[in-house]
């Protein structure tokens, strides 16, 4: 039996195994799931090398599974993050209900994601895509089991639309190019806008919805915030990258195989969609009061950067996108873990309710600090590299000067929510309400710290990520990808030496820290946060001294026009109008699930039967 099939089988069996373990002993569910994925990862990384391929036939269809450098790059994200997230889950999920359901779906999601990246034909791609979507849907509604309609419905609808779009595109590809293999489709120019424009558009729609591109981002924040934090790590860190995976595949192949000057608008539209996603995600992130929602909107914004990077189609731009995909998985994974740890320990992540956890959860704070600096893109941590690549790509290669300002605006405004996140949870007054809070258990801290270390090392040695990324780029058609271990160079030859910067910062840090600490050491007192100068008055016990409500109100007022463009409202209006329009067809909807299933089957059968007539 093929090794890849064994791996997928392990995951599939493991998914059910976990479910059964849960009904015997709840204690071991998490550990089992962790071990299964760990073993899978171990087998995968030792046995499977890039270039692996496996062809077989099923029901008359030629199927092909395999790994290029490009997909291998995403496997790192998926398996690496999954292992850490599951280690984190063990304690995080402890004591919660329906653990078998949770872990089973979790492993199934991993299976789906892994399947998506190893599929080299459209049929298995669609198949695994659906497994991933449905399994993750089960997890989104995990916390709102009885309120599926209100909580999970957006994700559901958008996923369904995306799946239909992708399916349509696949059918079209089959009709026009008579192939189901991705590599063949690329070779025949199926993703090219020049021939059948709707094929790449449908595909981009399908992937774009997963990557939460504006205007399809509305599902993402509630879904990210509602699902359990240990899963959101994967959801935002890895699964959204599946959309990026697809867009990258489609877009770069188009870009490299045709004359891009003719399709300036394609680049521009995609780039601006990414840019506006980044801005919208950022400005909505900074008005959130719930830390989870803040991170969710921030994820949307970060995916916007990645889309912008892909849209340039240039070497630096795609490199930026791939780099950001990894570094975003790293720091956002860590941040969602931090939010989960706070939620677990303090009971809530509402930033208007808690404050001053820094002394209670010091390790968590350090992780949060490192990840936030990475997120904000400030040197010397890993986030800066991504920002640098993106700007330089836009300025020097893509010449998209207004878009770079939009991206810059979004990333400067990101300082605001970065601070808000740290301040809201960890800084500010230490109140009596949070006195009982303790540091999270070790199995939750360790994965966070690992991610934080990766984010730090990537700042001085981004080459560690550039290496696989460059290979991946070569796999999708870029020639002569250049990179250096610890410095950045643009096409004009201007360099930024990251290792030197990191060393300099470290040296100054040590010198000034030692100076400041040793000077007057005995006469320096460390006091609590109640000991502040409140104009000579003594605050009453019930008075709140932490600034929690409407943190960035002045900015909101200044940027009021931006806040008027609420995508949610537009979709809602659209929904209402459609509802009125389709009121006529109301009778078709029986409200019975089986009827709907029947409709779908009929639709598919008709599509398959009359494909030649319809699409010739």
């Amino acid at each position, binding site marked *: 039996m093929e090794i890849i099939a064994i791996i997928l089988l392990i995951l599939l069996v493991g998914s059910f195994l976990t479910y059964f373990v849960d009904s015997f002993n709840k204690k071991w569910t998490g550990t089992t799931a962790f071990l299964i994925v760990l073993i899978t990862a171990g087998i995968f990384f030792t046995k499977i090398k890039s270039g692996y391929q496996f062809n077989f036939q099923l029901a008359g269809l030629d199927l092909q599974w395999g790994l290029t450098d490009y997909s291998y790059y995403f496997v790192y994200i998926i398996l690496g993050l999954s292992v850490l997230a599951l280690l984190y889950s063990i304690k995080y999920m402890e004591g919660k209900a329906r653990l078998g359901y949770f872990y089973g779906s979790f492993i199934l999601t991993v299976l789906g994601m892994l399947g998506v990246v190893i599929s080299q034909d459209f049929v298995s791609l669609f198949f695994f895509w659906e497994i991933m979507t449905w399994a993750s849907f089960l997890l989104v509604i995990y916390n709102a089991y009885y309120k599926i309609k209100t909580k999970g419905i957006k994700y559901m609808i958008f996923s369904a639309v995306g799946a239909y779009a992708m399916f349509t595109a696949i059918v079209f590809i089959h009709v026009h190019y008579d192939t189901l293999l991705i590599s063949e489709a690329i070779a025949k120019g199926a993703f090219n806008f020049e021939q059948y424009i709707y094929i790449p558009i449908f595909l981009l729609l399908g992937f774009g919805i997963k990557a939460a591109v504006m205007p399809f981002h509305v599902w993402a924040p509630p879904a990210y915030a509602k699902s359990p934090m240990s899963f959101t790590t994967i959801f935002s860190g890895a699964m959204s990258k599946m959309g990026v995976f697809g867009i990258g595949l489609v877009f770069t192949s188009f870009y490299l195989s045709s004359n891009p000057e003719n399709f300036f608008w394609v680049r521009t539209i995609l780039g601006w969609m990414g840019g506006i996603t980044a801005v919208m995600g950022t400005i909505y992130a900074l008005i959130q009061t719930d830390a989870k929602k803040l991170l969710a909107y921030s994820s949307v914004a970060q995916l916007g950067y990645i889309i912008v990077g892909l849209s340039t189609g240039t070497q630096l731009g795609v490199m930026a996108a791939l780099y950001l995909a990894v570094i975003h998985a790293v720091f956002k994974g860590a941040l969602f873990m931090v939010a989960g740890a706070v939620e677990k320990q303090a009971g809530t992540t509402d930033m208007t309710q808690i404050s001053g956890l820094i002394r209670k959860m010091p390790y968590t704070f350090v992780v949060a600090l490192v990840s936030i600096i990475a997120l904000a893109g400030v040197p010397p941590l890993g986030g800066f590299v991504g920002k640098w690549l993106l700007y330089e790509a836009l300025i020097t290669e893509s010449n998209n000067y207004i878009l770079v300002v939009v991206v810059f605006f979004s990333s400067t405004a990101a300082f605001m929510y970065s601070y808000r996140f740290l301040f809201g949870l960890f800084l500010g007054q230490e109140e009596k309400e949070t006195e009982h809070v303790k540091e999270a258990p070790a199995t939750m801290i360790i994965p966070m710290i690992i991610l934080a270390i990766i984010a730090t090392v990537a700042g001085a040695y981004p080459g560690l990520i550039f290496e696989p990324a460059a290979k991946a780029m070569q796999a999708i058609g870029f020639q002569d990808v250049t990179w250096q271990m610890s410095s950045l160079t643009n096409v004009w030859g201007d360099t930024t030496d990251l290792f030197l910067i990191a060393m300099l910062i470290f040296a100054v840090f040590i010198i000034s820290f030692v100076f400041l600490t040793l000077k007057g050491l005995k006469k320096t007192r460390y006091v609590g946060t109640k000991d502040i100068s409140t*104009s*000579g008055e003594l605050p009453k016990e019930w008075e709140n001294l932490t*600034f929690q*409500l*409407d943190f960035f*109100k002045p900015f909101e007022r200044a940027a009021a026009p931006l806040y008027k463009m609420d995508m949610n409202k537009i979709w809602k209006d659209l929904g209402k109008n459609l509802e009125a329009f389709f009121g006529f067809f109301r009778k078709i909807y029986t409200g019975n699930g089986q009827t709907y299933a029947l409709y779908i089957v009929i639709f598919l059968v008709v599509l398959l039967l009359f494909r030649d007539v319809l699409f010739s």
Partner: protein
Amino acid sequence: MIREKETTLYIGPQHPGITGNMMIKLKVAGDTVVKAETHVGYLHRAFEKLIENRNWLQSFTLLCRFCVPEPDPMELTFARAVEELEGRKVPERAKYIRTIVSELARIQSFLLWYGGQSGSSGLYTVGQWSVGDRNYILDLFEDLTGARIYHMYMWPGGVRRDLPKGWIDKAYRTMDYLEGRLETYNQLLFDNAIFQKRAQGVGIIPKDKAIEWGVVGAPLRGTGIKHDVRIDEPYEAYDKIDFVVPTFEGGDVWARAMVRREEIKQSIHIVRQALDHLPGGSYYNRIPNPMKWTVPAGEAWVKTESVRGEVGFYVASDGSNKPRRVHLKGAAYTHGVSVLEKILPGENIADVSFILNSLGVCPPEIER
């Protein structure tokens, strides 16, 4: 115990933005004030209690300390109240001198207000200039009374001493100088687009509620209602002097600033007129031995106009050598407590000190 959601912000007592020693406790959401509470009592010296233990003339040392930025209207009002109780006549020359002194006091208080209003908006230069130039007025006071701030100059029956030699010329010169300087201040402060942006539409007192809320003085005239004690109940020489009481529509900080901008010019105008028409004769209708001086029983309610608004004294005498009750009503008593608590909610924190200065809140006047 349920912790409040809004942030509590203490403006004062130890705060650069507060006018004097008081505290405004703000509940803030974002940077918008949700609720404001005035807390006073930090300057309570029990003046009214102490005056009951002093004789009529000794009270003057305490009286002028009622309000620090502008002590003279206090003396004047109390002197007038005592004169009304006793039926003592004031010589014509003393009336003019009192007018001059009280207008000079207004001018120096206006200059201090320039400093406060511009300082709270972040423009320190005007404050430095105007507070520096205020010293010229204080020099005039020093020549006249021997003290810079607290004068105890206007007594029942007139003023304590006559104008010194050469004082009138000096006063003219000072007025000329100040008039020139005012142009500069106004250019820098009121013609400044940023100041206009800051001041307009901030701290609005509604016109239809203003009188009912107890708003007096420049804030009232800033809503377009013309009311000034100097015209409504003319005292001293104001009925013989020709001057204009400016009003401005809007009721916001800007309107109040515009009213004061005109008023200081009018004050200079009044001083000039009073100096021009200064009659000769006696300046003091001498009272008997102050240690044994008694004032007939009765009550008096006397008002004068100060910079912050009207100053009223309710004085009750039981016929002894000590006042039975002296009760001050300063403009800040309503402005600083009930009016402020009404207009602050909804404003930006950046404007709290700004509004406070434009209302001329003076805490010692509130708690006495």
